[in-house]
């Protein structure tokens, strides 16, 4: 025990001051500088300790390194203290132990450093942190701006949605006002023709009677299969379809007009949107009109027949030439024939060609190819049809008796069209020209025939006419405003 103590305290050695010959300036320099270094070395670990306590976010590796640095610097401080001690006391053994300890701690600290250096390099500098912070601030500012813009957009959008909702409601209200209580149903069906939406159902049905069902469930097989075929066609072709159908009811037959339009349903599936209108009243009205019109035609023809019979009966037993009866009968027939052309167009108008051909049927049959008709399709009014008919009858009758069609070689050209008259208004122009007939002798014709062609017809049609007796055939032209034709 005494040996170790003597070794530690350096018994038998001279103190270090002896080597310095106790020179006061050297002693003072060594003691002073070692003391200052030691104090500084002891102060630094306290600084590190304070730092580590404050920086609670340091990880374990950094903390360990801090402890090692503190130990290393503390140990260095101790070596300087020993430098002062050994000036007077030769405790070189103790000094050696402390130096070895300091060397060990220094070595360990130096060895730990490489593993931790890369991490230390990565630690951001305050300047980098400042820049990062500035970037973050700018980013936050940009985000705030974006948020403000989004808010403006949101407000604008909700206003727009509100406007559109108002418009939609208005449209819906108009739609409902138009259809409520009307005889029109609007509905949609999916691809398998199941009703998916119905408004204003007809035939006494309720919406709930139709939804989830199809035609075959709510009406007889006959219209149902026809309607479904039309709807499938609309779906297949992608084109609008229209049809009419009837449904037998105890109260009578109901008629409907159906419009089918292929569409995309609310849920995105394909389907059809349809409008079905009850047109039973229209149909009945139409049928009634047809009956009345048929009756009118029947009666007017009968009336003409009666007029003819009465004239005939009157003439009988009186001294009336046969030619009179024939002429009257022919003219009555001409009127009746013009009438036929009107019946063909339901009394609305007559096709001019029909009117002319009707009057000439007899000569067209007897002299095929010798009468040429040439003109565009023109519809003339009922009155005009009667007068044009009468005129063409007179011309045809004369042509077969005395004119171009009385011989074997003559022919007749009949042309018509629409052209502006002298005042620029559209006018009907009709011409009758006989050619290559027997030599024409003017005059000597029956008076009323000429009256019809030169006075009655042009006057009735507010136009002008010209009858000329060219040597090779009669010519007649008529010009009348289209408004009067």
């Amino acid at each position, binding site marked *: 025990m005494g040996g170790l103590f003597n070794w530690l305290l350096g018994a038998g050695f001279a103190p270090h001051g002896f080597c310095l010959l106790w020179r006061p300036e050297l002693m003072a320099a060594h003691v002073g500088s070692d003391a200052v270094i030691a104090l500084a070395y002891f102060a630094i670990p306290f600084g590190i300790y304070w730092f580590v306590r404050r920086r609670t976010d340091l990880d374990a590796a950094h903390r360990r390194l801090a402890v090692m640095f503190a130990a290393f610097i503390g140990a260095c401080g101790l070596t300087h203290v020993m430098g002062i001690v050994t000036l007077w006391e030769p405790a070189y053994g103790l000094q050696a132990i402390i130096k070895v300890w300091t060397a060990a701690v220094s070595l360990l600290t130096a060895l730990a450093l490489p593993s931790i250096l890369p991490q230390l390099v990565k630690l951001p500098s305050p300047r980098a942190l400042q820049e990062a912070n500035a970037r973050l601030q700018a980013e936050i500012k940009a985000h705030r701006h974006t948020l403000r813009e989004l808010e403006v957009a949101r407000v604008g959008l909700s206003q727009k949605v509100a406007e559109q909702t108002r418009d939609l409601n208005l449209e819906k209200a108009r739609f409902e006002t138009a259809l409520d209580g009307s005889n029109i149903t609007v509905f949609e069906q999916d691809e398998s023709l199941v009703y998916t939406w119905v408004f204003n159902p007809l035939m006494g049905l309720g919406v709930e009677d139709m939804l989830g069902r199809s035609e075959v469930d709510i009406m007889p097989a006959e219209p149902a299969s026809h309607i479904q075929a039309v709807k499938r066609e609309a779906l297949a072709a992608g084109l609008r379809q229209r049809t009419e159908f009837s449904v037998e009811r105890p109260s009578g037959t109901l008629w409907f007009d159906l419009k089918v339009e292929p569409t995309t349903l609310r849920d995105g599936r394909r389907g059809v949107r349809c409008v079905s209108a009850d047109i039973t009243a229209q149909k009945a009205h139409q049928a009634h009109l047809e009956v009345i019109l*048929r009756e009118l*035609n029947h009666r007017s023809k009968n009336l003409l027949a009666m007029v003819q019979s009465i004239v005939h*009966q009157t003439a009988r037993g009186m001294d009336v030439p046969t030619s009179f009866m024939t002429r009257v009968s022919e003219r009555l*027939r001409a009127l009746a024939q013009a009438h*036929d052309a009107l019946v063909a167009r339901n009394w609305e108008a007559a096709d001019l060609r029909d009117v002319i051909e009707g009057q000439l049927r007899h000569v067209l049959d007897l002299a095929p190819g010798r009468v040429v008709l040439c003109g565009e399709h023109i519809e003339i009014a009922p009155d005009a049809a009667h007068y044009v008919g009468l005129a063409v009858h007179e011309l045809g009758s004369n042509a077969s008796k005395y004119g171009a069609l009385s011989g074997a070689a003559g022919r007749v050209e009949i042309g018509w069209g629409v052209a502006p008259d002298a005042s620029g208004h559209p006018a009907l122009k009709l011409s009758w020209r006989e050619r290559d007939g027997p030599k024409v002798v003017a005059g000597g014709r029956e008076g009323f025939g000429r009256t019809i062609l030169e006075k009655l017809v042009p006057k009735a049609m507010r136009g002008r006419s010209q009858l000329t007796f060219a040597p090779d055939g009669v010519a007649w032209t008529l010009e009348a405003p289209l408004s009067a034709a």
Partner: protein
Amino acid sequence: MSVLQGKTILVVEDELPVAMGIEDALADFGCRVAGPFPTVDEARTAAAGTIDGAILDVNVRGELVFPLAEQLRARGLPIVLCSGYAEIGVIPDTFAGAPRVSKPYTDADLRNALEAAFQRQAA
């Protein structure tokens, strides 16, 4: 001598002056007249009797004459139909080719149609 000479013709026509006109015309052609009858019903008995042909107004008092015409045709009798243009649509296809006169017709029209009907029957 005309094919019409001495023939008995049934006449169904509801307008009396027209019917009288037909009677006169038939007398001129050398025919005898059965009728004229203003309705199909009244003509039935005569139609079943001894006649050689018929002139039938298509529409008499709103009734169509075709059932009677069918009956006469079954007996092989020649028929002339009289019609206004409006009735053309109601003439059944089976009578589409039958000789026809359109009101108002002349005596000559009637003679032509009647002769045509008798010639068809003979052919």
